């Protein structure tokens, strides 16, 4: 049957008709005779197209079945163990699973849309509020119960009950106390200030290779070196505060922000831990001497005491006093004079304090 009519309102004037109109009545009169009696709002599908759809749905279900078998087979056939094997197994398992799920979903959807009737049924809706009789009954029952229980009358009972509940309510909080130690002044110090076993100053160690750094050999104009403390190369808690970046400057490049007494032959060490929220400030731009933290792009001028030139960090990266030991290796002369890393409530203006101390000394 060709579609001659198009969607248009009943009373449209003039009517639009394309092609030859079909006969107004079904040619096979009993075409719809076997349909069950429809409820109001239930409109059955055309049986011819429903039969067609049935085949399509059955095909989709069959595909889902085969893909499901394929999934199980893939699990048995494809082993893992190398990158290539894992990749193959992943594609086989995932591909078959995807196909099975999507074919099943498409089948059911086609079933609902092409075989089940079209629904436009109506259900009544009632206001959420309960009727006044019910409310009145609940109110009276509540009052009756409250009075029967004596909760209102016996003040002493009420108060002692509250009293009894209070410590029990606090108990869980108390129990959580041992989740961690108190902060103390742990955030103010790093392992650079701790004495080594042999009493010598702590050496700077190249991260990764684990080698100490001979000052005479260190030359990295343009690069930065990531440095960790000797003896704590793999201690994450220590590294989270004590990791350094090491740079070498020509004497004329260093500006007043950098403490020259804490450098050795143009070599400067700054904390690598960003003063914003603690990411490692790991990027360096040679031409501008800018250190950039990749997390939130706080930018520090390495030639000028790592002062902030852009971004959300509010304080410069602290500088570590360094020197050399008798063998010519770079060592820490003291701990940082201010807390490293992100700010915290107890920190205060440690930079100001350090400056005052230095002036007095």
């Amino acid at each position, binding site marked *: 049957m060709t579609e001659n009519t198009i969607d*248009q*309102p009943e009373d449209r*004037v003039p009517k639009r008709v394309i092609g030859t109109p079909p006969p107004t009545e079904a040619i096979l009169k009993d075409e719809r005779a076997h349909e069950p009696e429809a409820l109001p709002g239930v409109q059955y599908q055309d049986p011819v197209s429903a039969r067609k759809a049935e085949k399509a749905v059955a095909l989709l279900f069959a595909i889902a079945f085969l893909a499901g078998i394929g999934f199980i087979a893939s*699990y048995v056939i494809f082993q*893992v163990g190398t*990158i290539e094997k894992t990749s193959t*197994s*992943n594609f086989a*398992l*995932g*591909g078959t*699973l*995807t196909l099975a*799920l999507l074919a099943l*979903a498409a089948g059911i*959807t086609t*079933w*609902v849309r092409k075989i*089940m009737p079209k*629904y*436009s*049924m*109506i*259900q009544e*809706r*009632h206001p*959420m509020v309960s009727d006044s009789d019910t409310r009145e009954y609940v109110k009276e029952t509540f009052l009756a119960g409250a009075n029967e229980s004596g909760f209102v009358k016996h003040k002493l009972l009420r108060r002692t009950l509250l009293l009894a509940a209070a410590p029990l309510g606090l108990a869980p909080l108390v129990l*959580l106390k041992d*989740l*961690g130690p*108190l*902060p103390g002044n742990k*955030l103010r110090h790093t392992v650079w200030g701790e004495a080594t076993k042999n009493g010598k100053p702590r050496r700077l160690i190249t*991260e990764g290779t684990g080698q100490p750094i001979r000052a005479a050999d260190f030359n990295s104009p343009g690069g930065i070196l*990531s440095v960790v403390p000797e003896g704590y190369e*793999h201690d*994450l*808690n220590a590294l*989270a505060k004590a*990791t350094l970046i090491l740079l070498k400057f020509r004497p004329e490049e260093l500006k007043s922000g950098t403490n020259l007494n804490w450098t050795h032959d143009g070599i400067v060490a700054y904390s690598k831990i960003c003063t*914003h*929220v*603690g*990411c*490692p400030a*790991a990027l360096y731009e040679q031409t501008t001497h800018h250190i950039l933290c*990749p*997390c939130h*792009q706080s930018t520090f001028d390495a030639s000028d005491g790592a002062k902030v030139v*852009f971004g*959300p960090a*509010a304080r410069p990266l602290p500088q570590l006093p360094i020197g050399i030991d008798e063998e010519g290796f770079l060592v820490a002369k003291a701990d940082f004079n201010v807390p490293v*890393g*992100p*700010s915290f*409530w*107890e920190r*205060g*203006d440690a930079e*100001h304090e350090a400056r005052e101390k230095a002036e007095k000394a």
Partner: protein
Amino acid sequence: MDTPPKAIAGVSTFLDDRLGAGSFLKRNLRKMFPDHWSFLLGEIALYSFVVLLLTGTFLTFWFKPSMGHVMYEGSYEPLKGIMMSEAYASALNISFDVRGGLLIRQIHHWAALLFVAGMMVHMLRVFFTGAYRKPRELNWLIGIGLLTLALFEGLTGYSLPDDLLSGAGLRITQGVILSIPLIGTYIQFFLFGGEYPGEDIISRFFTLHILLIPGILLALITAHMILMWVQKHTQMPGKGRTEKNVVGAPFYPAFMAKAGAYFLFTFGVLALLGTFAQINPIWLFGPYTPADISAGSQPDWYMGFLEGSLRLMVPWEINLFGTSGGTIPLSVLIPALVPLGIIMTGLALYPFLEQWVTGDRREHHIADRPRNNPHRTSIGFAAITFYGILWLLGANDEISANFHIGLYETTMFGRVAIFVGPVIAYFVTYRICLGLQRKDAEIVSHGVESGVIKRMPNGEYIEVHTPPADDILAHLRGKKEIPIIEGGADREGIPPKGARSLIGRLRAKMSRAYGTDRIPLEEGHGEEHVAVGAGERKEVH
């Protein structure tokens, strides 16, 4: 089929004898579910959650939430012999030495992204159609609770594999916690069991991620569903649809089958993504160390707006007590708390603020078309713009690198746009809403273009307009007036009691602005078109 099969009849009788399930089913088998594409958005989130539970349970069978140090001896060659945490080693093990492990891990991650995305678009749908209005305010609040919890669920899950990227996220979390005034340091030490990173955080996050938060999520989702079921779904305005009925397809069999298929579609698409779209390739990042980071580190998308707001912030920090403490790192505290606070608090309060402004205490079951409440829609788009700018700027390094724009320029742009953008969005949206309303009003009063050109007796050509189809007309006429509280002065020039105070006057003013219908629908002139059809001369619009 005239009688139920014996097996079903037997079981039903058994259950009904013991539970009285019959009367429940009598009421609910034919529960109506109205149809509209936008009603399916929340289902995406629901089904993603189911997939998350399934895949997550699978992952726990192999994952070891421990920060103890081990040497990697699995089958991923490049990392062999490297010291790492047991958590990272077991995550690698799931990826390379468990059949289907990589697939399930990737589906899990994709499902997490889709879960939050589904919740957010669902929330926007509910907001813009006013479906949060009485009696559904409680379900709206539950939804906001779900969204907040989902962010924490994502954050804790993201940190578990303990690779370099996940550690960067954890480090930022720690820095943010430290910035909390007065108690930040203590919270950090309690949460991490001492100094960062410590040895406890992975196992603690694991418990939060697989037990506590999903448990609460599951309970709240159940409550969300029950309330939806009891209050019945809202419907879009249309033919035969009123505030007192629900028109749609019955739960049994049509909606049930559709929902089942929709779950399979969601799962299928997630499986497709998990198979072909690589996500979080942890083996490329290496084990976590606080000393290193890879450039271009990006959080999962739903955390992007917090990342962006941290990046946009200016370097403010104050020391209340000078050198002796009281440090408030505003450059961390403000971006971490304020945008999230504005968005979540604003969402939670909106239904109640709107009620206060409009004085509208009626129940609403017919959803608004967004254009028909232009101020609400504009506020929504201002909020989307606010969120969107933060989100976009969370990737400003990628934008800078890929589009060759200066990094700092993107930041400077963002610092201005975050204030200007929402205002522009508000006014543009408002104008668009009025324009769309005008279009509706025109269709209602003059009909639609029929495509039929008619030559008039005087030689003039006109296009005949016909009245719109019934259902379209009913849809357009579904526009409902927004109540305005009484605020004007009476005949003697005395304003009503509530509108005399400063707040009262402001409320009355806002109510007028919010509720005034600038483009009222007019009655149609349908008879004109008939007249034209009959050959009479008459002006047709």
